[in-house]
């Protein structure tokens, strides 16, 4: 415990993923977010006397998808347990969860592969459980508390890692990978603002080289990547300071909460005050058998995962790690990328188009990114090919033709170009005339160029392009301009 010893941080995460099923885990109520408070609350959700839970098999299937994606061991049958505690947002006085037989054991998630620093994060397990309602506290002077039970009973999977993460950055990378995975698997929208993903952090410090784990602190309910990082950083520093002051024993096993205003964590309850959850098997739900044939069915329908796509994009399509990573941010882009690439081999250009033009267009017009609202894949490919073959300039393609294509997603870009007279002009004579006109007009600049101000070349190019109304081939301009400037000796 010498202050000079370097310390390492040990982090384990518990990620709660809200499953995007239409109905709740044990009731047919809708799970839609943002509805009128307490409008999705049947007697089952509210725990009325005489009600019984009924398992939603889609939720089980979603949990299995995640398990298979992580190469976890899937249980051949699962049971549920009751976790008993009193809280106003918990309608039955217990949460139905899995204590003894989680649906998935082991498995792993790989992070950092796009940065050439792959790291395997082994998982402890994944289990299924129901969410609780939401308590709302309004103004300070409001004597009431409010509870919205719409969320109560929404299915969750809790993904629990082994304590192998070492930094805030790794924790963030893990979360981002999880988010990408659940989105690709179609089991969660990954929307952290709406609470679809939430995270508890377990964190402790220990002298480097030590094999024992230090006293861990749990930070509950973090709901953004940023807050996870901030909370870890704060807690790292707090514990570090105690270690360095020789007060490591003052770190107690406790639950802390993160203050999103001050970025600090504060103690919520210590171990002595921890709830005794009195887990016992849920007698209202018989075991659910997960047959090999069911597993095979789910496995068969498993989509390509982010890391698999990454490999495909960088190996087969030869994209840079950077381009591939950006493309991966949205599964729809990746799928569309592949569709467009069926019609052109300008893979890099396609990636650029998607990552820049297409993305900006959807961002600026605040449109949801859906494949159905993209141009027909062969038409975008046609546009990209036209640029490659110098039939149009990149500028014309991006600024003129693309917006028109978005409005007429079934019209050929060639037709658009013809209709709007946008095809590149490769008429040398006409272009020579324009160039002489420019060189005459900016005579002084020509002199300056001659004296070595070579940067003016771009200026001349721009002027020529302007006068050609953007239709001239940049290559041809460059060619002619170079020749004519030389001949002006």
């Amino acid at each position, binding site marked *: 415990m010498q202050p000079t010893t370097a310390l390492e941080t040990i982090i384990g995460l518990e990620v709660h993923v809200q499953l995007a099923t239409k109905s709740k885990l044990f009731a047919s109520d809708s799970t839609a977010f943002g509805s009128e408070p307490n409008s999705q609350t049947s*007697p089952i959700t*509210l*725990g*009325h*006397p*005489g*009600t*019984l*839970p*009924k*398992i939603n098999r889609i939720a089980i299937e979603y949990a299995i998808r995640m398990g298979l994606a992580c190469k976890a061991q899937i249980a051949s049958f699962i049971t549920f347990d*009751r976790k*008993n505690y*009193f809280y*106003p947002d918990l*309608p*039955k*006085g*217990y949460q139905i969860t899995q204590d003894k037989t989680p649906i998935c054991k082991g498995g792993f998630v790989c992070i950092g592969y796009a940065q050439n620093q792959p790291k395997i994060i082994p998982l402890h397990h994944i289990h299924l459980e129901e969410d609780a309602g939401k308590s709302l506290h309004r103004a300070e002077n409001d004597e009431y508390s409010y*509870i919205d*039970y719409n969320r109560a009973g929404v299915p969750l999977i809790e993904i629990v890692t082994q304590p192998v993460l070492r930094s805030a950055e790794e924790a963030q990378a893990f979360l981002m990978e999880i988010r990408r995975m659940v989105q690709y698997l179609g089991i969660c929208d990954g929307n952290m603002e709406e609470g679809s993903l939430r995270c508890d952090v377990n964190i402790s410090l220990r002298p480097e080289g030590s094999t024992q784990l230090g006293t861990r602190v749990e930070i509950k309910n973090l709901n953004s990547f940023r807050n996870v990082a901030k909370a870890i950083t704060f807690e790292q520093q707090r514990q570090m300071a105690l270690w360095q002051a020789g007060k490591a024993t003052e770190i107690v096993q406790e639950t802390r909460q993160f203050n999103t205003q001050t970025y600090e964590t504060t103690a919520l309850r210590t171990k002595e005050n921890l709830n*005794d959850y*009195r887990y*016992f098997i849920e*007698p*209202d*739900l*018989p075991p659910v058998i997960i047959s090999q044939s069911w597993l095979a069915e789910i496995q068969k329908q498993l989509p390509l995962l982010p890391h698999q796509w990454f490999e495909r994009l960088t190996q087969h399509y030869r994209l840079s790690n950077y381009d591939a990573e950006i493309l991966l941010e949205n599964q729809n882009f990746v799928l569309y990328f592949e569709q467009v690439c069926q019609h052109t081999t300008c893979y890099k250009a396609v990636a650029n188009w998607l990552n820049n033009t297409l993305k900006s267009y959807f961002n600026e017009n605040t449109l949801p990114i859906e494949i159905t609202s993209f141009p027909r894949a062969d038409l975008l490919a046609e546009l990209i090919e036209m640029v490659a073959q110098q039939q149009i300039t990149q500028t014309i393609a991006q600024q003129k033709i693309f917006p028109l294509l978005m409005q007429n997603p079934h019209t050929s870009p060639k037709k658009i170009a013809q209709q709007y007279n946008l095809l590149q002009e490769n008429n040398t004579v006409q272009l020579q005339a324009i160039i002489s006109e420019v060189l005459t007009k900016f005579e002084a600049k020509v002199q300056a160029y001659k004296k070595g101000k070579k940067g003016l070349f771009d200026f001349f190019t721009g002027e020529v392009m302007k006068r050609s109304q953007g239709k001239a081939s940049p290559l041809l301009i460059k060619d002619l301009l170079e020749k004519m400037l030389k001949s002006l000796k």
Partner: protein
Amino acid sequence: MKVQEIIKQTNFPALQTFLQQQQITCRQIVEYYLKNIDLKNKQLNAFIEIYAHEALTRASEIDNKITTKQPLGKLAGMVIGLKDVIAYQNHPLQASSKILQGFQSQFSATVVERLLAEDAIIIGRQNCDEFGMGSSNENSIFGAVCNALNPERVAGGSSGGSAVAVQADMCRASIGSDTGGSVRQPAAFCGVIGLKPTYSRISRWGLVAYASSFDCIGLITKDIFDTALLLEVIAGKDEYDSTVSQKPVPAYSQCINQSIKKAWRIAYLQEALQSTAVSPAVKHRTWQKIQQLQAEGHIVEPVSFPFLDYILPTYYILTTAEASSNLARYDGIKFGWRAENCSTIEQLYKQTRTQGFGREVRKRIMLGTYVLSADYYDAYYLKAQKVRQLIKQATDKLWQNYDFLILPTTPRTAFCLNEIQQEPMQMYLEDIFTVQANLTGIPAISIPNGIDEEGMPIGLQIMANYFQETQLLAFANAILQRKVCNFENSENQ
């Protein structure tokens, strides 16, 4: 025959014939029971709410079906009372507890749906021990139920109101619930028939939970045909209860008179008939029945059940554990009764639950919380789970050699009100013979088996293997059809 005699004396198929021939109406039947309720309920306290107007309206609707020759449900003419633990849409549901004061169910139990679909008439809800916890029906916010044969005696519990209602002709049948004997024990005390079918035979959707892995909806009637008919209507798979059996439901009512096997193999518990806790009259009646069966050529043999001493502790550990969790929802937050003037959430919980639950319920919640707590979990809850398995295995073994196990339903007949209320161990011993069926899940029936020297009824309990209700009902019927002997002095056995 007078209307009253028809209702009282005819069996159900005959009653339906009278209805079809329009010699009697459903309205007259309902009026008959309403009149009895009016006369007796004040003293007996079996019903806590009467749906008089509703029952009469429904009766007229069914009568109209008869006069217009529309198809009739199997239960047309059947007037039924519901124990206050069975949900009936838009009707109060309270489990005889203060904590559910003012609560109305938003849905009907599956059994209620099925009864109504067959034209049964529901006449009211019945008093019981709070949340089904008790053996004398003295733990009720509505007060104790009295035995109609002697109002100073208890009705038994927890379905005391349901048993007395049938006993005193206030309805034809009652739907009760049986977690440890709550249908069979009061049926025995009241001299009526009480059936607890196999666990999972009847959907629990709409049954207020006490101990989920034990709870069973049961039937109280005077005639075993009614039991069989009601069972065939309400049993069977149900998408609202994941634990209910998917097995097809036999037409029980068609099977009860089927010619019965010549020689049944019957076991009786040696210990039960030797125990000093069992009253001489109960012993005598049970012996008599055993001898009678032997005389008829059945094989009746004593068996030893090594776990008898463990049955009650196992039952009370596991049921209280489940109850502590099942009753956590009654917290004053979302529905039911809430304590006033509480300033913190903790205070609200404590006050609501301390004042809202009765003494027995509080005791069982505390017991259950204790046996599930981290430090005692292994010693109590886990151990009891293992013992439950052993009891199941030992019981299962019986069926290799026997068709039925017979026992007295209770060690003695109905005791006096307030007699043992302060002696919980003695009260718990009332269930000694009934809880085995709940621990294992096997079906069990209590049928009248004469009376004791004070005129109080004695019950004979018959148990059978899982889903053997057909055999069980046929056997019970065969016994009941024999002439009932009068009480003889126990020395004469």
